[in-house]
């Protein structure tokens, strides 16, 4: 350890001599997802290259969000880099709470970032956070069960086909559920899923005058369809299942289909964790023929809070972690299937990566998502599974709690929609929209 420190010290001194930047210790808040854990393991590479050291604060998603939000609004300055999402970035950027990433080096090739991700992480044309990985959502299904049911998955299925296939694959005696979907309360969990489902049924959160739209038939149709399908073919207790619960069900071979984040594709096809790794197929998220697929767009991104004294070092870290070289570093250590996906165009042009079974479908799904035009009818907001206004997280968490109570059979769809309508309008009034 002593020797290692000495070595780092020597490198750091060399760096000072070379660039005039002193070695800093960066504090980075991040989420405990697999790709970030991997990044933690590779930190030494960054330290060797730049001399800066890194201390990680790794937290579960909900705790992280609570922690970084409090820190940024109270100007706490506890972190030099924060891991935030596509929802927070434009809002925080608009408040001047983030350091603009408009002077990244030429080597970094900012134009290589997928346009959808870059738009979603910018405010007013300025990039405020660099995508570490990006995702959309798609259908993951068991090819063996699909074949046994005598069905064939189209490239872009309809919801009716999904429902029919789910019913055909369900085998309660053998603990196989035709379809596993998120029902867990929380705007980023079940709230996100029901919102994109509703989008594909022609629903929207708000009309052009910011009136809540839960009293419209589209929402009722979407919920009735979802609840009906899950009652026929979903797992028990799906009202508390989120991403992680469904992932582990799918990996254990207990789901015929799972519609969720594209990043899950690498987990379900990894033979170390998944018992069904060699029989997973992919398709675009379903639709109802109205022109919108039920898929979202999201990125976990690295941003620099405006208060930090170490903005330069922080930028060096962001350039390292979201670079093409980092992707190659992961590929060399862990294989191409495990590199952080969905951030860079060049990755999808790489012939090595094109061999990965889910690469093309991931890119297609990302390209099929349009945050500036998310719904069939016009809306005043940006964002697909979220509405990029500060009030949304609070509203959508409460709304999704009402919906989860429907999934658990504790209230009717009509009651839930009426409550959602009232509480949304109330919160929008409190925020001064109406």
């Amino acid at each position, binding site marked *: 350890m002593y020797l290692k420190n000495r070595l780092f010290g020597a490198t750091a001194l060399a760096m000072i001599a070379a660039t005039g930047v002193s070695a800093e210790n960066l*504090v980075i*808040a991040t989420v*405990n*997802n*697999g790709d970030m*854990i991997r990044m*933690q*393991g590779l930190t030494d590479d960054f330290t060797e290259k730049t001399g800066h050291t890194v*201390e*990680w*604060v*790794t*937290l*579960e*998603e909900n*705790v992280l969000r*609570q*922690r970084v939000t*409090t*820190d940024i609004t*109270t*100007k*706490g*300055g*506890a*972190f030099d880099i924060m891991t935030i999402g596509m929802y927070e970035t434009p809002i925080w950027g608009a408040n001047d709470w983030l350091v603009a990433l408009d002077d990244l080096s030429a080597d970094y090739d900012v134009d290589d970032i997928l346009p959808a991700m870059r738009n979603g992480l910018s405010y007013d044309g300025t990039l405020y956070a660099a995508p570490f990985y990006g995702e959309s959502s798609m259908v993951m299904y068991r090819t063996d069960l699909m074949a046994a049911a005598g069905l064939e998955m189209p490239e872009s299925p309809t919801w009716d086909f999904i429902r029919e296939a789910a019913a055909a694959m369900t085998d309660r005696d053998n603990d196989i559920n035709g379809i596993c979907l998120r029902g867990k309360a929380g705007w980023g969990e079940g709230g996100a899923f029901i919102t994109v489902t509703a989008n594909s049924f022609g629903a929207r959160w708000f009309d052009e005058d910011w009136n809540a739209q839960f009293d419209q038939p589209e929402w009722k149709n979407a919920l009735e369809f979802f609840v009906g399908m899950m009652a026929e073919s979903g797992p028990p207790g799906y009202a508390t299942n*989120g*991403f*992680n619960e469904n*992932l*582990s069900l799918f*990996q*254990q071979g207990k789901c015929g289909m799972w519609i969720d984040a594209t990043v899950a594709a690498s*987990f379900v096809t990894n033979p170390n*964790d*998944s018992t069904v790794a060699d029989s997973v197929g992919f398709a675009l998220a379903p639709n109802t023929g109205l022109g919108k697929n039920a898929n979202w767009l999201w990125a976990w991104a690295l941003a620099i809070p405006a208060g930090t004294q170490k903005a330069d070092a922080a930028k060096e870290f962001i350039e390292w972690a979201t670079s093409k070289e980092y992707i190659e570093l992961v590929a060399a250590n862990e294989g191409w299937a495990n590199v952080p996906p969905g951030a860079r165009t060049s990755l999808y042009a790489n012939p090595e990566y094109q061999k990965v079974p889910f690469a093309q479908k991931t890119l297609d799904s990302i390209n099929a998502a349009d945050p500036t035009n998310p719904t069939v009818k016009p809306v005043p907001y940006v964002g697909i599974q979220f509405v990029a206004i500060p009030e949304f997280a609070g509203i959508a968490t409460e709304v999704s709690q009402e919906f989860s109570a429907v999934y658990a059979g504790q209230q009717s769809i009509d009651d839930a929609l009426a409550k959602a309508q009232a509480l949304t309008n109330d919160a929008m009034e409190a925020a001064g929209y109406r």
Partner: protein
Amino acid sequence: MARAVTTRRKILTTAVAWTIGLLIFFPIYWTILTSFKSEAQAINDPPLFFFFDWTLENYSVVQDRSDYMRFLWNSVILAGGSTIIGVLVGVPAAWSMAFVPSKRTKDILLWMLSTKMLPAVGVLYPISLLFVQFGLLDTRIGLIMVLMLINLPIIVWMLYTYFKEIPVDILEAARMDGASLRQEILFVLTPMAVPGIASTMLLNFILAWNEAFWTLNLTAANAGPLTAFIASYSSPEGLFFAKLSAASTMAIAPILILGWFSQKQLVRGLTFGAVK
């Protein structure tokens, strides 16, 4: 025990008591056991109770991901520091309440307890803003103060009920003999109060160790204790029961061991004046 107890009755009591004891302890036992399984064995149906391939892999994975010792050390410092300061502040207060009671003593005591009823989340912003203002964010001293203040009412109350039980006659005898206040405290009161102070410290150490709201919201890289450590394991991707169990075991083991060794102390001390 003066009552004659038949052997049959004793056997019956033993069986019932052990069954209930094991039932209550089972979640902890299961967590520790699962931490030595592989992820696949952890969710095996039927559950595996002993015959499986014991492995330490989960512990090494957890240790690789986070520096356990640093979190542990912070936990020790925060819980220990807040307990010591709390007792230093609490002993004089409790002493004066117990031996020089006034009409308002009881009101003050109940008022102190009522300060604990302020919901922490309601003052998240005020406290965060103050911490930022005074540069206390992510410092151990800031957290020690918060933990101390949270538990001070309990400390004062526990000590007070203890001191109340010390017979006043002895103190008066000492006073007759011309003992000064300092001597009175040092030579008469202290020896009699030590068991009470010890169990007070123990209880507060446990409470401070387990506090999970402020220790999470006011820390970053430096001062985070084991509650922050566990917050990064609550929902990893995929199968995680075994790793969660390993992290949980690591978080609770030190305090569990401490608690077991000092069990007698705790049992004697946790009366809060319940015994007359």
